[in-house]
């Protein structure tokens, strides 16, 4: 498989919804250590709405599917996550507008745009203990794999591995932005909840194409 078609994108988002549902207690537990403990609940609430509306996106192009998802994310539960993930999906959507299938080259362009959107809105840097610590290395790995001529599946596997490492790197970081940053050094030793939910979102691309 060297492209992701519109039907496959529906499966990827479906896989994403199921992952978030499965991981909701874990995400809240991580958030509870250095936040207010509702991340899993809010993510689950949001992705339940996405799952409920997903059938209505069937048959649309990849950009339209991602846009439908992005609008739900942006306007359902709010929070920093709603704004950041909403922006992420809408930027992915813009770069895939009108396409019934996307190639690895498209995917690199889409995720670079998404990363740019997240950076502009969130004003965080890599190392600040946010979801950018998951996104940035994953996008870099995807681009590198594309330049090395890897297959779509192998590139997404690199993407997932880099995202995972990025997520795990947040454990030893001190939060510099967001609510957790108020706790300063008390945040060291706790993996960031947003970086973790972001990993489950990104993993859905590497796992969802196998569905």
């Amino acid at each position, binding site marked *: 498989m060297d492209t992701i078609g519109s039907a496959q994108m529906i499966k990827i988002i479906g896989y994403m919804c199921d992952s978030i549902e499965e991981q909701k207690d874990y995400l*809240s537990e991580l958030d*509870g250590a250095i*936040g*207010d*403990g*509702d991340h899993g*609940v*809010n993510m689950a*609430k949001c992705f339940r709405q996405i799952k409920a509306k997903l059938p209505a996106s069937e048959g649309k192009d990849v950009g339209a599917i991602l846009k439908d998802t992005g609008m739900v994310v*942006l*306007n*359902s*539960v*709010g*929070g*920093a*996550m*709603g*704004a*950041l993930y*909403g*922006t992420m999906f809408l930027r992915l959507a813009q770069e895939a507008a009108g396409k019934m299938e996307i190639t690895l080259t498209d995917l690199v362009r889409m995720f670079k745009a998404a990363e740019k959107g997240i950076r502009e*809105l*969130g004003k965080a840097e890599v190392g600040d203990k946010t979801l950018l610590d998951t996104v940035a290395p994953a996008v870099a790995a995807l681009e590198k794999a594309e330049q090395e001529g890897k297959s779509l599946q192998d590139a997404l596997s690199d993407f997932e591995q880099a995202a995972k490492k990025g997520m795990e790197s947040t454990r030893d970081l001190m939060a510099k*932005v*967001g*609510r957790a*940053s*108020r*706790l*300063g050094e*008390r945040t060291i030793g706790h993996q960031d909840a947003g970086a973790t939910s972001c990993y489950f979102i990104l993993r859905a691309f590497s796992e969802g194409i196998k569905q």
Partner: protein
Amino acid sequence: MKKFINDPYDVVDEMLEGFLAVNSKYVRLLDTARTVVRVDAPISGKVGVVTGGGSGHKPAFIGFIGKGMLDAVAVGEIFTSPPPNAVFEAAKAVNGGQGVLFLLGNYAGDVMNFQLAAEMARAEGIPVEQVIATDDVASAPKDRIANRRGVVGEFLAWKCVGAKAESGGTLAECKAVAEKVNNHTRTFGVAIEPCTVPAKGVPTFTLAEDEMEYGVGHHGEAGVARIKMMSADAVTEKITNEILNDMPLQAGDEVAVLINGLGATPQLELYIVYRKVKQILDAKGIVAARSLVGEFFTALEMAGFSVTLMKLDAELKSLLDAPADTPAFKQF
């Protein structure tokens, strides 16, 4: 968790249903988003004053919608900022032709969602300005003052800006009042019991019998330090000094004093705290010209309080004294 709720996912909507029924004289809910607006909005020729944030802070935010205060509030989940469309719909609903001022606290989610909403509103031709409250001394050192959280000082901004807007102030004048309030206001909070976010089900932190959280905000989050429990006088002196060190005041200066209960601290204790603040100010020759004691901005059932001082000038004093008629704050 022991709470008088039904499904934890429904607490905000069920609360709103009750609140709207009680206060239909003051407010209505928009059809387009979870946004509560003044019943007579938009008011032609008046700047619209919009705020919003997570729920769980009663009587903030929606309790202060009405004449002389807020025009609209975008309602979020518990301790979670509302999405951009709720803020955008608020702006549309209250724009009386003079533009809209967004007042928000300095939280990542609120800042991002209000920014997206401001872009949406400006794209529709609505002039929008915003002022971000940063009154919480504990949340960042003075050299990074812009990183501080906004806490109950926001109430003073709603009161003063609302009065300015009601009296025909322009968008620029209302914004200037909000900035002045923020520059003149400092808050410091402490807590002795956490709160439980309904959908989470367990307390946000646990404290031993002889411990307190020092420098808390109003989301049940831990403070900047955990210290030994102190008497009312000792802790009040400690936090009032934090404020006075951060915002030096001279003998003869006038201030508004606001003692805010965080949800489960009785008024009895709040008045004991007020008494001590007054003694400290009196000893320094600082005049407590206006005083407010009660619950203005809570964190569910958190036990704790905060002390806020706002340095007054003639303008702020008259705006603070102006009439207001809202579900939770009335002054005639």
